[in-house]
């Protein structure tokens, strides 16, 4: 990766330099450019020493040259590169920049500058430098190669095509270069050109024997390009012609079957999909496509279509009796008696086999009230029948006369417990679990479910106790361990959670948490963040959210090595998939969760900086803390490195003994070795620096920007965008956020109070506020509120019905009536207690609002809420909680210290 050359290009005149570059390059002073022959030889050595990673030697050689020619641009740049590789980055940059200034017409200095930026992941800056180097030295494959990678990394498709064309022009005999160009053209939407380039590529490969994987991949890629271009006919012909050369038969058959379907050739499509189903009858894609080939549509809203689809699915179920997928899809679209029959056979099959996931599997059907009732009725029926006759009591099954094992009874209890928990009938659910436990003691599943039920009922401590019991039944199972750790976190017992996961994390990791961060274990990091936020430990909460943010950067940057790797491996289809996935990577729910958590903290910091504890440190104190941490970390790092070195030696010895290599996680796919940057020392392990920010809203924007880009389909994104924008007094942006949310779901309950708040804010803008802007805002708000007054608008939200709208309307009332609307708000919140659909979370939110109003009716509310949610700890007084604790501990004497078992 070192800049090639070393020999000077012919001395450039100012005109030549200008012609080669978009920016005017001032002519370099001769003494900064040329070297005497002795120094020229030394400079060649410098380049070699860089190539062979002899950084210290290289540095010395460069200094030798600089003694004679202290301002020689290219030598300065190379010196900078060595310094940077030797952990003296700042000095390194100084030298490189000086080198660039001294000799702007040299491709070497730009290349070096580009390498520096690239190592620091400043992709945009690196790209600029490489472009400049390329303008000076057009045909350097080395520069072009990196330029190509940077341009695709930054999704600059036109530039990618340009650089790929240049590479091909310089080295047309290397087949891979044709492939690279085809990819660039495809990504740039130049389908015809990509097609042509691929044909040229294939022409070069006439004599490849059949069964070659690399060519097979390229051919499939070619067919995919034709498919994406809408050239279905040609794509299918192409597949036909090349069928003998394609070894990935599955991809071949799937693509072909899709094409047949798109071309409306239903009969051959039907055969094609049926063949695939014979390979794998549990593939949803195959099933749905097969139904389409049969002229029906599983996903259609049209009743005739779905009825037809059910018939096709029934026939399939007969053909593939072991496919649960076929039968499960039917449950989505069938209703009435038809549903009951099919559901019954689906459920009894699973219950008699003791499939623990059967409830989770059918839960999605519960959004349909009728189906929910049917399932409940069926399961109750099974329970009674099993108690009486040891059968499910289903007429269809009566003939085979089989007596169910007693396990069927257990799993039916287990199923019903989940059923009632889903209906928020927690005590009924717990009672069923007691029965199940009497029937089969020591089954971790029962304790696990008890934990979930208690958690939903609001008893985090009871839930934790049950989950701990589950884990203790099978200490070898990491799944139970993970769940137990999660419940520790839900109960805000972070230290114990970390101890718990530590039973399975790598023993040689600095800490269990560090291992989980290194392994990118999102769920744990996010749960810790949430727990710290609940506990008011905002620095640590922010720290966790930033850690998730950083992992997403890491995952995003992982693609870098694959830009060249995939071409070498010919796995282009998978690579294109990677690029597209990465383009929307941060729409992942873990990113959204972390962003929301962090932004909410930053908003709190902005609104009420004095409430943040510990109070932000003064700069001096902060520096001292940071310095101490740095030293501590550096020491640790030294130890770690020493250990690593020792281990490496050990490993090398072992490897030479044994031929076979061992498992190496994180194996680097690309062969090119980068000078490994020293692992960054975390100077802010507890997030104090994050919390000490003077610009919380700007920091919040850092989390928000990616959301706006790739998670615009979520109302929540725009709600967060709105919250930040109003605080930054960017009212047009705030309006835009509300409009985007409105366009997604005009009736979303979280949107309503935001609109009311914004209306109030805009109405009270000072008289000298920009009139035309004011008008834009007013017009926008009128559009959002359907030209209604705020009173009417707020009342209408309430009329939609349901607890979410009751809450929305209460918040709206506070926003536009303030204290004057207090009693009205109280009324609304009490009304919520009567809403059947009000969840525990809704009710807690209502209580928070009441308290924020210093309502005199808070206690009354708590009383009523306790009656409704008897297990919820959040409504209990300190005394009640203490009593509960005493009771619990009294009941478990001798069990202390058992929660984290030493195994």
């Amino acid at each position, binding site marked *: 990766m070192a800049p090639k050359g070393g020999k000077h290009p012919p001395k450039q005149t100012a005109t030549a330099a200008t012609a080669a570059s978009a920016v005017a390059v001032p002519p370099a002073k001769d003494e900064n450019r040329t070297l005497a022959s002795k120094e020229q030889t030394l400079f060649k050595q410098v380049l070699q020493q860089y190539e062979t990673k002899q950084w210290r030697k290289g540095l010395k050689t460069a200094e030798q040259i600089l003694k004679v020619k202290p301002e020689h641009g290219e030598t300065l740049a190379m010196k900078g590169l060595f310094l940077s590789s030797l952990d003296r980055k700042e000095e390194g940059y100084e030298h490189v920049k000086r080198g660039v200034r001294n000799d702007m017409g040299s491709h070497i200095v730009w290349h070096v500058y580009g390498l520096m930026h690239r190592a620091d992941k400043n992709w945009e800056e690196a790209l600029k430098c490489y472009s400049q180097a390329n303008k000076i030295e057009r045909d350097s494959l080395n520069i072009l190669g990196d330029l190509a990678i940077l341009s695709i990394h930054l999704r600059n498709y036109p530039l990618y095509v340009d650089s790929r064309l240049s590479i091909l022009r310089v080295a047309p005999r290397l087949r891979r270069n044709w492939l690279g160009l085809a990819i660039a053209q495809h990504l740039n939407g130049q389908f015809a050109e990509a097609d042509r380039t691929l044909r040229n590529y294939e022409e070069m490969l006439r004599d490849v024997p059949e069964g070659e994987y690399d060519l097979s991949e390229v051919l499939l890629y070619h067919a995919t390009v034709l498919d994406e271009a809408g050239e279905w006919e040609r794509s299918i012909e192409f597949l036909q012609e090349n069928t003998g050369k394609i070894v990935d038969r599955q991809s071949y058959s799937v693509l072909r079957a899709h094409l047949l379907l798109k071309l409306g050739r239903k009969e051959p499509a039907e055969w094609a999909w049926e063949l695939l189903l014979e390979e*794998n009858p549990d593939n949803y894609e195959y099933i749905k496509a097969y139904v389409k080939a049969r002229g029906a549509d599983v996903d259609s809203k049209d009743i005739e279509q779905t009825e037809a689809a059910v018939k096709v699915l029934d026939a399939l179920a007969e053909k593939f009796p072991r496919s649960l997928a076929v039968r499960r899809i039917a449950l989505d679209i069938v209703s009435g008696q038809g549903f009951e029959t099919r559901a019954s056979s689906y459920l009894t099959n699973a219950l008699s086999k003791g*499939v623990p996931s059967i409830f989770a*599997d059918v839960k999605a059907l519960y959004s349909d009230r009728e189906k929910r009732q049917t399932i409940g009725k069926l399961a109750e029926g099974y329970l009674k029948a099993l108690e009486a006759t040891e059968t499910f009591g289903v007429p269809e099954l009566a003939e085979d006369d089989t007596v169910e094992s007693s396990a069927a009874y257990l799993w039916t209890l287990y199923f019903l417990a989940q059923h009632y928990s889903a209906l928020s009938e927690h005590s009924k659910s717990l009672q069923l679990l007691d029965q199940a436990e009497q029937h089969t003691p020591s089954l971790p599943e029962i304790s696990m479910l008890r934990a979930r039920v208690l958690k939903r009922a609001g008893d985090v401590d009871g839930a934790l106790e049950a989950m701990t019991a589950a884990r203790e039944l099978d200490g070898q199972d990491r799944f139970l361990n993970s769940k137990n750790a999660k419940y520790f976190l839900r109960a805000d017992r972070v230290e114990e959670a970390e101890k718990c996961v530590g039973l*399975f994390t790598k023993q040689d990791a600095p800490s269990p948490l560090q291992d989980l961060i290194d392994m*990118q274990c999102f769920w744990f990091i996010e749960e810790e963040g949430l727990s710290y936020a609940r506990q008011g430990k905002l620095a640590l909460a922010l720290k966790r959210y930033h850690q998730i943010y950083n992992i997403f950067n890491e995952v995003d940057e992982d693609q870098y090595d694959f830009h060249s790797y995939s071409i070498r491996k010919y796995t282009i289809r998978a690579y294109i*998939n990677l690029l597209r996935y990465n383009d929307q990577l941060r729409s992942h729910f873990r990113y959204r969760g972390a962003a929301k958590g962090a932004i909410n903290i930053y908003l709190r910091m902005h609104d009420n900086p004095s409430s943040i504890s510990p109070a932000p440190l003064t700069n001096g104190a902060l520096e001292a803390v940071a310095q101490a941490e740095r030293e501590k970390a550096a020491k640790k790092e030294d130890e770690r490195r020493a250990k690593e070195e020792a281990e490496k030696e050990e490993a090398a010895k072992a490897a030479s003994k044994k031929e076979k290599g061992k*498992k190496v996680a994180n194996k680097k796919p690309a062969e090119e070795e980068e000078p490994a940057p020293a692992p960054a020392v975390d100077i802010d392990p507890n997030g104090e620096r994050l919390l000490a920010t003077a610009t919380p809203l700007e920091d919040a924007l850092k989390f928000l920007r990616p959301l706006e880009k790739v998670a615009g389909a979520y109302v929540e994104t725009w709600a967060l965008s709105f919250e930040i924008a109003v605080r930054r007094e960017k009212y047009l942006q705030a309006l835009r956020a509300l409009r985007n949310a409105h366009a997604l779901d005009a009736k979303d309950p979280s949107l309503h109070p935001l609109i009311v708040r914004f209306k109030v804010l805009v109405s009270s803008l000072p008289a000298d506020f920009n009139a035309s802007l004011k008008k834009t805002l007013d017009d926008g708000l009128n559009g959002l509120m359907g030209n209604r007054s705020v009173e009417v608008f707020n009342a209408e939200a309430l009329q939609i019905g349901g607890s979410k709208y009751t809450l929305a309307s209460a918040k709206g009332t506070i926003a536009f009536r303030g204290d004057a609307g207090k009693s009205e708000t109280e009324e609304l919140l009490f009304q919520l207690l009567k809403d059947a659909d009000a969840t525990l979370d809704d009710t807690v939110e209502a209580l928070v609002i009441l308290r924020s109003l210093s309502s005199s009716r808070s206690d009354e509310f708590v009383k009523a809420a306790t009656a409704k949610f008897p297990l919820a700890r959040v409504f209990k007084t300190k005394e009640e909680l203490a009593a509960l604790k005493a009771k619990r501990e009294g009941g478990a004497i001798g069990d202390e210290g058992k929660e984290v078992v030493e195994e």
Partner: protein
Amino acid sequence: MNIRPATVDDLMGMQNANLHNLPENYAIKYYLYHALTWPQISFVAEDHKGRIVGYILAKMDEEASEEPHGHVTSISVLRNYRRLGLANKLMKLSQQAMKTTFQANHVSLHVRKTNRAALSLYKDTLGFEVVQIEEGYYADGEDAYSMRLNMK
């Protein structure tokens, strides 16, 4: 349960399942390395809501000296999703793809000596046989059974 080939989109879900279930974990880049080298032979099981509940992460052994064979880097199914035969189905699909795409004639895997549950799954359910013990195979020094299944 929807059982299908794994794509890049599934890798984070596979990683999540792996982290919940097994002590051998990998950063996403290692999953990417599999998906972009042998995209045909890893599979996932997904529940009705699109959550990954089981996976097989597989590779081809690259030693030119030996005849081509597949290797299971990791396979697991979330505890709640047992008894659906998912591991079996995932393994079979992977083997089929190893055979057709890469002409594999056997598949190998490693398992911790102490991991009885996994051992019985591979041996009794999936038909693998222990071929040798690899001493100190794992980072913590534990031995591994090297297991193998011939494909006809």
